[in-house]
């Protein structure tokens, strides 16, 4: 048998022992793995055991990095926590927010970075250049900061058409202008053909935080309302279709946009905003899970209230994927105190990037750490973090 199965089983037994408060097994009888009692209670015992297992310190089991580590789901989180956070640990990084908030002299500064490796480089509604600027601007904006300066690092593959590069750069220039930020420093590297895929871009950004109270998903409290700023999944589905592997055509464009202006209006109108996150990789579902985990609360959302364009829903149905997990590049999730939810929604509706905003659910005390979905059909299920990429089902 392979080593990792034994390892997993040993860990499993340890979880049980820890829960029972029993001393470490000295090679005596096998620990009881099977829960006992009437069915309802037995199921609850299993659920509790799983909950304990989920709170174990994350560890990477794989020998090598797989595509799942980059997909924004559980494997990504394990990688970040087990490798990066473990090595670089400090109170600011531990918050795992979209941007760090650091004191520089008298100023509170938001600082963030993001890399862009999208394929194809150009797609309906934008290109890698738009994403590189908007992505970093948005990470600053959802931290409650006014984005100011960006850096840009380019990794170019030998053979990339100069005309493509100039189009990408022109898009970045336009996006920066529209977001009101300046690109003030940069770097360029070229690698041999085959060592990259056309063009990768890294951007970093700084912004100024002038708001007194810090935003953060850990601030969510039972009773808070959960708002989504517009129809979800446009970007992810656009990219999937642009790859041309699926032979599906649809009238759809990426939602890539800078969110600083709509967010600024929202924060002014609704001081009760507790947290903002832009719904990129892993989609809205991942953010809802981040809220539930960070704040130790439950989140209940209502399927029929979640804004999804018919064309996105149609494509998602065909491909067997859930729009809740599909990436957006110009949408965010807001957690707002109940008293301010109406004001927040009204403020969003006055802005073109928030006109499709809707209250999709609420924060609850119970069950902690779990996201529940009331399905349009009338049932209830949980919405978990995604494992790996959304893989279409085969039949």
């Amino acid at each position, binding site marked *: *048998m*392979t080593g*990792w*199965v034994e390892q*997993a*089983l040993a*860990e*499993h037994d340890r*979880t049980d022992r820890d829960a029972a408060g029993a001393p470490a097994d000295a090679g005596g009888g096998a620990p009881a*793995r*099977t829960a006992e009692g009437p069915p*309802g209670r037995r*199921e609850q015992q*299993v*659920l509790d*055991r*799983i909950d304990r*297992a989920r709170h174990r310190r994350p560890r990477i*089991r*794989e*020998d*090598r*990095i*797989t*595509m*799942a580590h980059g997909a924004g789901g*559980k494997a990504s989180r*394990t990688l970040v926590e087990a490798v990066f956070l473990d090595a670089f640990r400090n109170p600011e990084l531990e918050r795992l927010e979209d941007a760090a908030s650091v004191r520089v002299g008298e100023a509170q500064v938001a600082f963030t970075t993001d890399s862009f490796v999208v394929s194809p480089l150009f797609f309906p509604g934008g290109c890698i250049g738009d994403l590189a600027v908007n992505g970093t601007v948005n990470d600053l904006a959802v931290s409650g900061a006014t984005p100011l300066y960006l850096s840009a690092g380019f990794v170019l593959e030998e053979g990339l058409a100069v005309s493509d590069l100039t189009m990408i750069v022109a898009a970045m220039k336009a996006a920066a202008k529209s977001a009101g930020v300046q690109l003030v420093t940069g770097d360029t590297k070229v690698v041999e053909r085959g060592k990259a895929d056309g063009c990768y871009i890294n951007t970093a950004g700084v912004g100024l935080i002038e708001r007194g109270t810090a935003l953060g998903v850990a601030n969510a409290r039972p009773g808070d309302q959960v708002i989504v700023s517009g129809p979800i999944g446009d970007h992810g589905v656009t990219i999937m279709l642009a790859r041309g*592997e*699926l032979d599906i055509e649809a009238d759809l464009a990426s939602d890539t946009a800078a969110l600083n202006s709509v967010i600024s209006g929202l924060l002014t109108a609704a001081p009760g905003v507790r947290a903002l996150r832009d719904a990129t990789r892993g989609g809205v579902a991942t953010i809802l899970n981040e809220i539930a985990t960070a704040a130790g609360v*439950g989140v*209940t959302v209502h399927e029929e209230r979640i804004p999804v364009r*018919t064309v996105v*829903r*149609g494509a998602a*149905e065909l491909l*067997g994927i859930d729009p809740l997990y599909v990436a957006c590049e110009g949408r965010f999730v807001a957690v707002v105190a109940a008293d301010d939810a109406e004001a927040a929604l009204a403020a969003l509706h006055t802005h073109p990037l928030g006109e499709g905003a809707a209250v999709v659910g*609420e924060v*609850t005390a*119970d*069950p902690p750490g779990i996201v*529940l*979905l*009331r*399905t349009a*059909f*009338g*049932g*209830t*299920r*949980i919405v*978990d973090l995604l*494992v*790996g*990429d959304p*893989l*279409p*089902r*085969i*039949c």
Partner: protein
Amino acid sequence: MRFVDEFRSAGTAHALAARIAELCEPGRQYKFMEVCGGHTHTIYKHGLEDYLPESVTLVHGPGCPVCVIPMGRVDDAIHLAAHPGTIMTSFGDMMRVPGSQGSFFDAKARGTDIRMVYSPLDALKIARQNPDKRVVFMAIGFETTAPSTAMTVLRASAEGLANFSVFCNHVTIVPAIKAILDSPDLRLDGFIGPGHVSTVIGCRPYEFIAGSYGKPVVVAGFEPLDILQSIYMLMLQVRAGRAEVENQYTRVVPYDGNRAALHAINEVMELRPYFEWRGLGFISHSAMAVRPAYRRFDAERLFEIPGVRVADPKACQCGEVLKGVLKPWECKVFGTACTPETPIGTCMVSPEGACAAYYNFGRMNRHRVSEVSVS
């Protein structure tokens, strides 16, 4: 959205649920098996069990294509893919299925050329584009996907393509259902029949379930109301003491199946004397191989393959879950050692696997949840 929302109407569901509840005899328990993993997925994804009376239990069956692939076949496929100059292609669901040395994803990370495709025809396209490589399609699935594999081989043959082959793992549903009916562990009141398989084979092959075993069968579609209606139809049969094969999915399933698809399968493939199913062991005449006439496209003849049988991890109870004897959460390692991130068993891999469906969608205390979500 048209053709979707009609099949997910909460109002209709409430009405159907009331009728199902009326048919329940006091003190009696009802157990129905949904054979197909697609049904399992729908049931959990839409929270369908919320509509069922406590006396009606759904048991998840073996009809999940990747769940039944034994470890040895995954090892064989990875060994085959590692031959120099080979490109292995497969459906996305297959990528995370664990063999004894890891999954396709792990092999890919080690440098083996394994690519995800949406259709076997995509694999054919890769073969045309890479004439200097040998392209293999890892064919999996029940009668649902077998016709597309067969059509692909026929097309490769017509084109005279010399660098394309199929590693055939197609299985057939009826022997698996028979194995479950013959198993002493489980007492069922009826079956929700597989919808997609039946678009190919029709409803006749299930007549023995009603005739010889006296169990009702209702072939069902994949929307939640399809399944709820099929449960209602099963309850009507049970109440009336009938055991028949009925077709709820008439908008797609012809009672006699699809002749063209069956003809394609029969042209290219033949039944194997026996085949190993994950957790269920060897079942006779339960899988298909490429016929000798198409040996040029049969990876099992073209490549040296170890063909070693690898025993499932002892802790893994996939077999019991696939047979419906255990509920997913009753498996000893469910959710702790075996999770969707690090699956030990195949039932935790595919979105159609019972364990993955329960873990991802149903891992909650229904009593507590119903208190929370009434709003």
